[in-house]
């Protein structure tokens, strides 16, 4: 019983991992083309950007909020940086581009954070507003032109062609995997082992209790949104690198899909619960379905419906389990294991 519970994980990560394995086996049985390096490399490549965005969504969700402005921040930061670099014909190297974009993203995050924390407004509504403002400013005052691969700064195009593993005829493993893995591990470590990380959980669990134990709620929240803005900008630059173009109209509109993946990964929309591992699994599952449904003979038009159905089933099972828990007498052991 105890082993089972540990396998299941605090946020049902085990269940999700099992679902992924079942889906992968089903796909492999249905199509011999599934178990090839190219499928795997494609899956990794298409998961990179959603994964970074999902981490930002996860952090906000753990703190009890919902952020829909991250795609706007991401493309704003990445596009502004790339456009400036290509117009000034100055290449600040890959590190420089990341740094500039991250500062821009962090500044937008600061705007979100100040409005949300100072005025205690609902996060969904505020980020909805800032999303419009950010996208509007980008397209009105900065630029609406598509920047093609030829006009990208050389360091970006070079990074776009950097492959970790290259199997001729069977695809490649993209080099951006390394920075993404580093960020994923860093966020996991921060959530697990720093005061700041634990404070985010505390605020999401009970904001008033967090205040009473001495957590500076306003400061933590502002810092959180700055961090999430920076993460979004990081994801934005990676999407420009992978896509080999900068399109100011891209990314916006994907926010609800990312939120769906994070929810699938076991994070609670009420805050206080969620894990990096679960989020990774949620993103991988969604991308697995999006990429490979065609392989098992289901037309690609079914992708959205399949992800939607999966999400509904996932949250329904959670809700029914919560309903059953409420009917059972309170068990101390259960409380302990959950904490």
């Amino acid at each position, binding site marked *: 019983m105890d082993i089972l519970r540990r396998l299941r994980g605090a946020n049902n990560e085990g269940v999700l991992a099992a679902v992924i394995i079942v889906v992968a086996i089903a796909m492999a049985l249905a199509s011999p083309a599934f178990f090839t390096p190219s499928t795997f490399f494609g899956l990794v490549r298409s998961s990179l950007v959603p994964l970074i965005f999902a981490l930002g969504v996860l952090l906000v969700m753990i703190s009890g909020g*919902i952020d*829909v402005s991250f795609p706007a921040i991401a493309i704003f930061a990445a596009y502004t940086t790339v456009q400036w670099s290509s117009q000034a014909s100055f290449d600040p190297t890959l590190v420089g581009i990341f740094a500039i974009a991250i500062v821009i993203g962090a500044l937008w995050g600061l705007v979100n954070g100040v*409005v949300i924390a100072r*005025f*205690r*407004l*609902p996060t*969904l*509504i*505020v980020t*909805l*507003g*800032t*999303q*419009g*403002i*950010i*996208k*509007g*400013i*980008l*397209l*009105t005052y900065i630029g*609406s032109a598509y920047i093609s691969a030829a006009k990208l700064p050389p360091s970006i195009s070079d990074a776009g062609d950097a492959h970790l593993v290259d199997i001729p005829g069977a695809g490649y493993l993209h080099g951006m995997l390394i920075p993404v893995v580093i960020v994923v591990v860093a966020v996991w470590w921060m959530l697990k082992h720093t005061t700041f990380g634990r404070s985010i959980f505390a605020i999401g669990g009970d904001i008033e209790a967090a205040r009473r134990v001495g957590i500076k709620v306003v400061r933590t929240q502002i810092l959180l949104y700055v961090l999430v803005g920076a993460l979004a900008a990081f994801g934005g630059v990676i999407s420009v690198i992978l896509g080999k173009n900068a399109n100011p109209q891209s990314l916006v*509109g994907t926010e*609800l*899909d990312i*939120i*769906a993946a994070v*929810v699938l990964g076991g994070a609670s*929309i*009420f805050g206080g619960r969620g894990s990096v591992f679960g989020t990774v699994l949620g993103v991988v599952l969604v991308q697995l379905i999006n990429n490979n449904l065609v392989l098992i003979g289901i*037309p690609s*038009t*079914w*992708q*959205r*419906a*399949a*992800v*939607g*159905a999966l*999400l*509904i089933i996932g*949250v*329904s099972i*959670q*809700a*029914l389990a*919560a*309903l059953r828990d409420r009917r059972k007498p309170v068990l101390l052991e259960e409380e302990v294991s959950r904490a």
Partner: protein
Amino acid sequence: MSDLGSNGLRTANSRLDGAVRSVIDRVHLQRGAGRMVILLVVTFLLFAALNPRVFLNPVNLQNIMVGAPEIGLISLAMMIAMLTGGIDLSVVAIANMAAITVSSLYTLVAATSGPETAEAMSGLIILAGIAMGALLGAVNGVLVSVVGVTPILTTLGTMQLFNGLALVWTGGVTISGAPTVLTTIGKTTLIGIPVLFLVLIVAAIVLALVIDRTPIGRKVQLQGANPAAARYSGISARSTLMLTYTVSGLLGALAGLVFLARNPSASADYGSSYVLLAIVIAVLGGTNPNGGFATVLGVVLATLTLQVVSSGFTAMRLSAYEYAIAQGVLLIAVMVFDQINFRRRRRSPLPAPPASSETVAIATERRRKDTGE
């Protein structure tokens, strides 16, 4: 003993009713409608003064009225879900499903039994579209009320599912064809007022009457204002929420019919920006995202205001992106303004008169407890 209990329950009930009523009345006057009237008049006068030749042109005014109904109906659907403390992210997907149902049934009948038969059956076909909306709304209702999934998660999932099914149904392309009845309605005006606009007004009046004047409406309001109090008042959360999301789906279907009336084609991804816009409109119109307070009038006025701003921006040759900035600034400014106002009211030593009845009710409740009555 039981007599005393039911008596106590009744007084508690009436007190609760009074408190809720006073809160609603106050909000009615102060938050949604009153403020939106001012905003609407100010924005209208502003654009009329800035560019009277284009903005006050009858064609432009008619365009405002033709553009308002679809987003207005979607915002009303959003509002009613928010009134119970929920949200309906799937409403645009439902509208598209309804439009696709009508459009594809119409073309199917026209192809198999001739266009005349299709026209003759258009009443039935339109009803099928409305039934589709109600059905999908009921799916949301079951998930929220029976299964117990949070509204935002339910509708996030069903939004994907309904949208996905619409993609499968249409194969991802725009399908065309709509009953002539609908397209005629889309073109007709009554004394200069587009019939579509009248559809919005009639729907809004019916919804307002249901919310404000019927026991069902009271239940919906109380469910959002205080679910625990609603439960203790003997209101079934299950049936209230079921009804709310079904009505939300119905309004979505109506919006889908308006899509078809304006343009006889349907697709899975029409109006994808409407979900967030509808939330903006609902909140601007004084809807409390946490539930309990909303006014139909406020939402209709907010819809018109945003339409006025949108067409005013066009008249001023400003882009859709500048309109997006204006939307965002307006939304955040209104929320911040409300919050500052609310804090000031709370800090002021003398309670504002409208708040007193509620305070008194709580105070008497405490006194009753203290004296052991």
